[in-house]
């Protein structure tokens, strides 16, 4: 069964990941590249002022590059994929990795509660996966383009993980436990991360036009939904196939 879990995760993730990579290539990635031109313009523009005015320099720090060693000062020394084919290839590879990871988590949940794995059920679990890992965290931390102001990375990652875990658990309890007190608790748990609130920066500072950012946020959520659905569907199709195959080899 372990072999089947790994096989189905890998294959389902590969198929869904490839499909979504192609979608990303024509939807979200062009917007990221566009946003980077605004980010680069912002970086280039106030450079002489930086030395003269402390305030400018501080804005730059809050912007992220120096603090995270990501872009900016130490940029040239760090490896990063070259624009063009290499960059696209890495983005696709990482998307496939994400899809394999989601497929494995989906299977873990379904096998843990002894759910029958078929197309419809796997799709239903994938919808809940998107709600827990995509939509709920995005309500606090909206999908962001490069250049947007953001609170400290670790705090956001922690809130993201906490929200995804709590939402997944709450959805499961609400859908699978009959007791009304448990359901009430589940609704409360769904709200809890948003009552606590996601970490946000003091002031917005992105120079990327709001139209582009809004378009990106919507596209990103749609792409995530598509990634979950494609992964769930592939798991639902491949699992019975793998089960039949292992049954056939066992019988032979």
């Amino acid at each position, binding site marked *: 069964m372990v072999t089947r879990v790994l096989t189905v995760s890998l294959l389902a993730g590969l198929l869904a990941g490839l499909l979504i990579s192609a979608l990303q290539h024509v939807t979200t990635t062009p917007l990221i590249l566009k946003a980077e031109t605004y980010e680069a313009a912002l970086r280039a523009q106030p450079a002489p002022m930086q030395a003269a005015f402390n305030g400018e320099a501080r804005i730059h720090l809050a912007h992220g590059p120096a603090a995270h060693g990501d872009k900016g000062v130490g940029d040239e020394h760090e490896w990063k994929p070259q624009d063009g084919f290499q960059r696209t290839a890495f983005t696709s590879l990482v998307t496939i990795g*994400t899809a394999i990871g989601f497929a494995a988590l989906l299977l873990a949940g379904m096998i843990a509660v*002894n759910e029958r794995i078929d197309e419809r059920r796997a799709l239903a679990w994938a919808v809940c996966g998107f709600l827990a890992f995509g939509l709920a965290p995005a309500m606090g931390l909206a999908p962001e383009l490069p250049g947007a102001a953001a609170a400290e990375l670790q705090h956001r990652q922690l809130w993201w993980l906490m929200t995804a875990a709590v939402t997944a658990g709450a959805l499961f309890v609400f859908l699978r436990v009959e007791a009304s007190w448990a359901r009430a608790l589940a609704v409360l748990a769904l709200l809890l991360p948003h009552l606590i609130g996601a970490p946000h920066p003091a002031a917005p500072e992105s120079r990327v036009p709001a139209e582009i950012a809004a378009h990106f946020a919507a596209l990103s959520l749609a792409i995530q939904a598509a990634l979950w659905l494609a992964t769930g569907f592939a798991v639902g199709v491949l699992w019975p196939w793998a089960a039949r195959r292992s049954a056939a080899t066992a019988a032979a």
Partner: protein
Amino acid sequence: MNTATVTSQASVSERAKAVAAALILGFVLVYTVGFAASANVHNAAHDARHGLAFPCH
């Protein structure tokens, strides 16, 4: 009862092992692609992290 029905009725310990394997694979992959702090991993994953709305930068 033939072999097919026996193999489809997985034992609890077999299921536990499968769940553990799936959880490890899932968490390791999602952590690496979405959360790992290494600069190289971040740069390679940059566009996908933004595109899939993982916290980035």
